[in-house]
């Protein structure tokens, strides 16, 4: 079987993906690139001789086994085929032993990048190959199998070489696509933290389904199903995920990613959707660009996603036939870098799906479910190819039944009405107290007798079934009597709060066709004119209490009450509730709350809310009693005292008031012994819940939820005090009684757990509808498609709550926000409430509001009240660690208080826009020529026409680059001054700067104290190109008030700069400064980019003179070979002349001609050749947009200027502690990042900060936190 095979290019530079993995290897952190393992099993038909013969040529000739690497000066690597791999005979073992050994090998690029083990197994042999990830992927293994098993030379890959214009054309196509397709991700778990240990889930699809997928195209089938899954999980119309694109067979690693941008139309069937996917797949491949190019493009933008192409990656591995007698026992996996990596692998039983996910973001159950949902989409898609994909259920009937289920309650329903059950206790325990209110005391007997008397009278006034009776009486014993009387007479009561606004009350009294009003004389003047109803004042009613109730039969469909609710718009609507569902609700609630005749409840809720009525009805139905507050405004002290004195064991209290109660009880240690508190009305944060648990000392806590339309409290969350809930708000819990609670999407399909949808409540426990509003009723109460299937009901209705929620892992529902407040930003659905809740969890934040503002460009802005007025940026940074990128507001504005209009409602229009707030200048006029000139320059550059001479340059919006421009403009006018950016930091107003210029007081310094004081050792930050030190402000913030920080200005920004200075000279100035300030003291250095080389040189110069505790090296690169002395550049024939002509043509045009001439004249001949080569390597044509600072040309000039400074510099090893950090993008670019372990014995491998690039890493919160940790360790150790 052995034959000679010729592999191409035995000595070559690395490809893009090889460079990337090489860079990872160099910094000592392979990250997601793990050794690639293939295990083949040979049965007895392959004797040992035959196996050995097959293996020998592979190990001798295949490039994966012969590859070795060399590094040229400057850090550039090349690949050679000069090595060899020896087959290791391992003796006897099974596949587990072979795998364990294969995993224990640590392939390294210098010594042994590949391992091959041969084992004797039961009845045959095992061959285990373990290769460095730079050398292999699944495609390379396919090639190895071909050579090994068929003696066939594997396909050789040519690197696709695109010319500059084609590359640019493709990139712009991808840019446009990616800009309009949002990155789709599965919803994260609560308190998500990326980058934790991976979790894995497997699912093998049934053989029949696998076959149909294979026939249709495995990749297109899976990509379609995944797009549908992600659409349902995210609500994104245009969504993007990453698709693994590697050659099926290759001689070198080729596995990469392309962003697949799909917009599955949910109204179409699976078959049509699949065709569309197949077209997109073909287009994506036809316009392929290297993964690295696409990632770099994304990461060069501010606020890039840490998974720039997609947070979910799909890899479909090809099926590969094996000759008889051979089995594949292990196959390599792609890099597990994304939040969720989905691998599909065909096998004899069917396609196996492997889901590998970040365990910090997802729970294992979530990942299992996602696979199940994918299978359901595929199954339904292939069996009903024309069914609109939106109608494919993700949940099974059993799952839906379990999630929507109410609290279990098997007790048969008592058919009697609420007041009939209450009346029963007048017979059973007539002398037992029922109602306590102020000085009023009513026993069950007295309560019933008084209500009977009034009921008889009401009947004479025409009250009967469906007749509304208004109760215009303040909360108290009389109101309870009146309500019971209305029901006993067969009527429907309508509570009207005497204290509520007259216009609202008049609307209620006229809207519902009220026939009788029960009230007091003192409220008569609050009745509307022309009211036709009979009015009865309690003072005028003298009939004696009587034991017999009127003989009235209550039909279960008959109205019990009409409750008016204030919608967000329009007039209050009357919600009509029938006796049957009301009584059933009250009965089940009594059992869920574990109420008895011993219950004595203090209901604090107003009678204008239906919850307020539940909380007196239920205790009375159980034969217990209620203590009704005799005024609306009891202090916490009064309430707690009443509870104690009256021996209450239950209380029902609005959440906000309960919080005050708990705070008071905690301060005064005055919590009375209580069994249960129920509360509700608004979102309850964990911290508040903890306070309630701790301070109130009750056994059970119940969070109640429910719109009036679904009768009182249709959902509760009942827990032991002290329970932790992983969520922003306490759960709403589950349904009560004959109800089910659902979370549904816009197509009325149940949402999977964790996915936000609208909360619907169904079952018999819903209201009849809105009085006199059949259309609104039909709009909000919709036919229930689930009841018939789950409970065998017929004609049932669901109420659409308008609230957003999601099913939690335990099946309870969590509140998320309001449907009408939900907003869409770049296609992502955002619930402002979720962001507000995270803001509220920050220390000191008392109120939070998140809004989409601005016209025409919408901006997401957060407003908070509570913390210090300058805390906005810190709050924003806190949000960054807790929320996905698309949910981050652009700014957080701290206000003294929320602006309100005359009605005490929030005045949204009065909320300041963030810039407007920062830019409000004091506007002090300029005096004298200098001030006038400077003010004109600053106003123009910042764009702040109202700026005055005492306004702070940076507070007015002046950014770092604007500062440099301002300096340049001022220097042009006063060429004799040595003004530097340090002056602008020290003297940031027009007046102060003008004084420095006229008095000649400019500092000319290059060191800027970013934080002057603090007890910790000082941190010195060394600059990369064009670094003005403002870049370190966020880092300084993060390091805290105790950490003094000094930043050095980049020497190219220093006006005293000369050409051809050496690194030693540049650093000498910094070193002098450090010695003056810190001789003999502990300190730390931070070097970013080439600043790392400056920091290293400073450490050398200061050896033994300062106590250097830590050097933080941030993305420090070797210079590369571009300008290395002695590196002779290659040119294609004629290329040098062409580049020379290009350079001359460009020099003739550029406005920076003088500067360039100066720079070029400083180059020696070798350096000039290198410069030409450098120009030729640039992807873009030479820029001529200078000389303005921040122009591309100026930046290019500074780069070359620095290259000339650094090219002669040589580093020496030092024994100093080094913590190094690399940006993920720099690794992906294969930049020549320095491995500091080669320069110091006290250096550790680099920490990789993924999802950021060379430029942005310094402002990245995730970097700040890690550096702070290392710094703290260094200072304490």
């Amino acid at each position, binding site marked *: 079987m052995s034959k000679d095979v010729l592999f191409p290019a035995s000595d070559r530079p690395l490809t893009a993906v090889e460079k990337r993995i090489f860079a990872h290897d160099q910094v000592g952190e392979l990250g997601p690139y793990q050794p690639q393992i293939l295990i083949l099993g040979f049965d007895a038909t392959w004797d040992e001789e035959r196996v050995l013969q097959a293996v020998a040529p592979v190990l001798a000739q295949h490039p994966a086994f012969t590859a070795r690497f060399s590094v040229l000066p400057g850090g550039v690597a090349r690949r050679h085929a000069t090595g060899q791999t020896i087959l290791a005979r391992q003796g006897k073992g099974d596949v587990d032993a072979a795998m364990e050994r294969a995993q224990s090998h640590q392939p390294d690029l210098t010594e042994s990048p590949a391992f091959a083990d041969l084992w004797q197994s039961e009845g045959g042999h095992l061959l285990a190959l373990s290769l460095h990830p730079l050398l292999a992927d699944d495609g390379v293994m396919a090639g190895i199998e071909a050579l090994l098993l068929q003696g066939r030379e594997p396909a050789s890959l040519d690197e696709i070489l695109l010319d500059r214009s084609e590359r640019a054309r493709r990139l712009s196509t991808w840019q446009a696509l990616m800009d309009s397709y949002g990155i789709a991700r599965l919803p994260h778990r609560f308190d998500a933290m990326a980058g934790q240990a991976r979790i894995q889930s497997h699912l093998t699809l049934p053989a029949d389904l696998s076959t149909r997928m294979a026939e249709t195209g495995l990749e297109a089938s899976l990509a379609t199903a995944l797009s549908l899954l992600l659409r349902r999980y995210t609500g994104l119309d245009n969504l993007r995920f990453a698709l693994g694109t590697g050659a099926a067979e290759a001689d070198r690693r080729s596995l990469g990613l392309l962003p697949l941008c799909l917009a599955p*139309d*949910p*109204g179409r069937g699976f078959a049509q959707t699949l065709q569309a996917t197949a077209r997109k797949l073909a287009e994506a491949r036809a316009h392929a660009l290297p993964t690295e190019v696409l990632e770099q493009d994304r990461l060069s933008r501010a606020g890039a996603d840490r998974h720039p192409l997609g947070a979910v990656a799909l890899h479909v591995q090809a099926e590969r036939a094996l000759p008889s007698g051979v089995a594949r026992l292990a196959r390599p996996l792609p890099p597990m870098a994304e939040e969720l990596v989905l691998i599909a692998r065909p096998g004899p039983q069917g396609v196996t799906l492997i889901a590998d996910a970040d365990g910090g973001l997802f729970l294992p159950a979530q990942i299992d479910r996602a696979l199940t949902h994918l299978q359901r989409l595929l199954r339904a898609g292939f069996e009903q190819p024309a069914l*609109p994909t*939106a*109608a494919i259920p993700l949940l099974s009937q059993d799952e839906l039944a379990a999630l929507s289920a109410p609290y279990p309650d098997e007790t048969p329903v008592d058919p009697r009405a609420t007041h009939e059950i209450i009346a029963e206790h007048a017979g059973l325990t007539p002398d037992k107290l029922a109602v306590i209110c102020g000085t009023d005391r009513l026993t069950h007997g007295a309560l019933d007798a008084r209500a009977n008397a009034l009921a008889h009278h009401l009947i004479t006034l025409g009250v009967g*079934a*469906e007749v509304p009776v208004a109760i215009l009486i303040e909360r108290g014993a009389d109101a309870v009597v009146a309500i019971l009387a209305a029901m006993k007479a067969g009527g429907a009561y309508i509570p009207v709060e005497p204290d509520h606004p007259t216009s609202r009350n008049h609307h209620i009294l006229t809207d519902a066709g009220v026939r009788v009003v029960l009230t007091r004389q003192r409220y008569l003047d609050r009745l509307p004119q022309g009211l036709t109803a009979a009015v009865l004042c309690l003072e005028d009613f003298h009939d004696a209490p009587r034991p017999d109730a009127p003989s009235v039969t209550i*039909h279960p*469909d*008959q109205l019990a009450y009409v409750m008016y609710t204030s919608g967000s718009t329009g007039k209050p609507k009357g919600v*009509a509730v*029938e006796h049957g569902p009301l009584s059933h609700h009250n009965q089940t609630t009594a059992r869920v709350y574990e109420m008895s005749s011993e219950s004595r409840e203090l209901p604090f809720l107003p009678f204008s809310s239906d919850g307020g009525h539940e909380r007196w009805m239920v205790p009375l139905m159980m034969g217990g009693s209620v203590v009704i507050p005799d005024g609306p405004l009891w202090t916490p002290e009064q309430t707690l005292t009443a509870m104690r004195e009256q021996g209450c064991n239950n209380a029902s209290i609005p959440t906000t008031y309960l919080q005050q109660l708990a705070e008071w009880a905690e301060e005064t240690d005055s919590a009375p012994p209580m069994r249960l508190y129920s509360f509700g009305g608004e979102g309850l944060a964990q911290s508040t819940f903890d306070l309630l648990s701790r301070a109130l000392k009750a056994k059970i806590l119940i969070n109640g939820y429910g719109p009036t339309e679904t009768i009182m409290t249709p959902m509760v969350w009942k827990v032991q005090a002290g329970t932790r809930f992983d969520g922003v708000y306490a759960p709403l819990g589950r349904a009560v009684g004959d109800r089910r609670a659902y979370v*549904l999407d*816009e*197509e*009325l399909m149940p949402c999977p757990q964790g996915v936000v949808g*609208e909360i619907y409540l169904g079952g018999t426990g819903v209201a*009849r*509808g809105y*009085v006199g509003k*059949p*259309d609104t*009723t*039909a*709009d909000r*109460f*919709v*036919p*229930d*498609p689930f*009841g*018939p299937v789950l409970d065998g*009901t*017929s*004609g*049932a*209705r669901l109420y*659409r709550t308008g609230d957003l929620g999601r099913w939690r892992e335990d099946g309870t529902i969590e509140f998320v926000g309001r449907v009408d407040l939900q907003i869409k930003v770049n296609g992502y659905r955002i619930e402002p409430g979720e962001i507000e809740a995270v803001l509220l969890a920050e220390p000191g934040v008392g109120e939070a509001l998140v809004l989409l503002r601005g016209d025409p460009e919408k901006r997401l802005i957060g407003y908070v009240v509570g913390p210090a007025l300058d805390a906005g940026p810190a709050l924003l940074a806190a949000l960054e660690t807790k929320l996905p990128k698309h949910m981050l507001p652009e700014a957080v504005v701290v206000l003294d208080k929320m602006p309100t209009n005359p009605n005490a409602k929030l005045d949204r229009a009065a909320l300041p826009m963030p810039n407007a707030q920062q830019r409000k200048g004091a506007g002090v006029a300029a005096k004298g020529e200098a001030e006038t000139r400077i003010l004109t320059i600053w106003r123009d550059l910042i764009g702040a026409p109202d700026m005055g001479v005492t306004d702070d340059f940076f507070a007015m919006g002046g950014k770092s680059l604007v500062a440099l421009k301002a300096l340049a403009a001022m220097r042009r006018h006063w060429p004799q001054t040595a003004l530097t950016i340090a002056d602008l930091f020290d003297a940031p107003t027009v007046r102060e700067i003008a004084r420095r210029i006229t008095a000649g007081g400019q500092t000319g310094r290059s060191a800027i104290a970013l934080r002057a004081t603090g007890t910790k050792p000082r941190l010195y930050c060394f600059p990369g190109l064009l670094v003005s030190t403002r870049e370190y402000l966020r880092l300084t913030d993060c390091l805290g008030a105790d950490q003094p920080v000094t930043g050095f200005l980049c020497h190219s920004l220093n006006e005293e700069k000369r050409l051809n200075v050496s690194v030693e000279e540049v650093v000498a100035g910094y070193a002098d400064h450090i010695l003056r300030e810190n001789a003999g003291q502990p300190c730390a250095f931070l070097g970013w980019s080439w600043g790392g080389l400056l920091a290293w040189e400073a450490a050398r110069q200061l050896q033994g003179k300062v106590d250097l505790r830590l050097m933080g090296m941030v993305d420090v690169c070797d210079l590369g070979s571009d300008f290395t002395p002695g590196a002779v550049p290659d040119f294609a024939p004629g290329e040098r002349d062409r580049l020379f002509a290009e350079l001359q043509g460009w020099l003739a045009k550029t406005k920076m001609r003088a500067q360039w001439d100066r720079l070029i004249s400083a180059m020696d001949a070798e350096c000039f050749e290198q410069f030409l080569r450098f120009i030729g390597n640039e992807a873009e044509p030479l820029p001529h947009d200078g000389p303005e600072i921040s122009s591309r040309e100026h930046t290019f000039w500074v780069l070359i200027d620095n290259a000339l400074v650094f090219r002669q510099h040589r580093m020496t090893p030092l024994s100093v502690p080094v913590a190094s950090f690399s940006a993920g993008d720099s690794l992906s670019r294969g930049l020549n990042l320095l491995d500091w372990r080669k320069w110091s014995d006290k250096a550790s491998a680099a920490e990789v900060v993924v999802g950021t690039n060379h430029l942005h890493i310094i402002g990245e919160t995730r970097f700040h936190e890690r550096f702070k940790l290392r710094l703290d360790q260094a200072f304490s150790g």
Partner: protein
Amino acid sequence: MTNSTLTHAPWVILRNHEGRYSVFPLAHAVPAGWQVQGEPAGREACLARIAEIWTDMRPSALQEVMA
């Protein structure tokens, strides 16, 4: 559900055995216990029609008892 992508398609008026009315997308299967009333139309048109025909919101059983 008002934002349903299937709602470009027409809606229908449904009525149940209790005489309660509601609206539903034509593309969705009619839930058990509900009957289609009249011709499919736009959502708003269906609701406007319900405002005209649903003049007595008492459930049928109660109407019979009270008759």
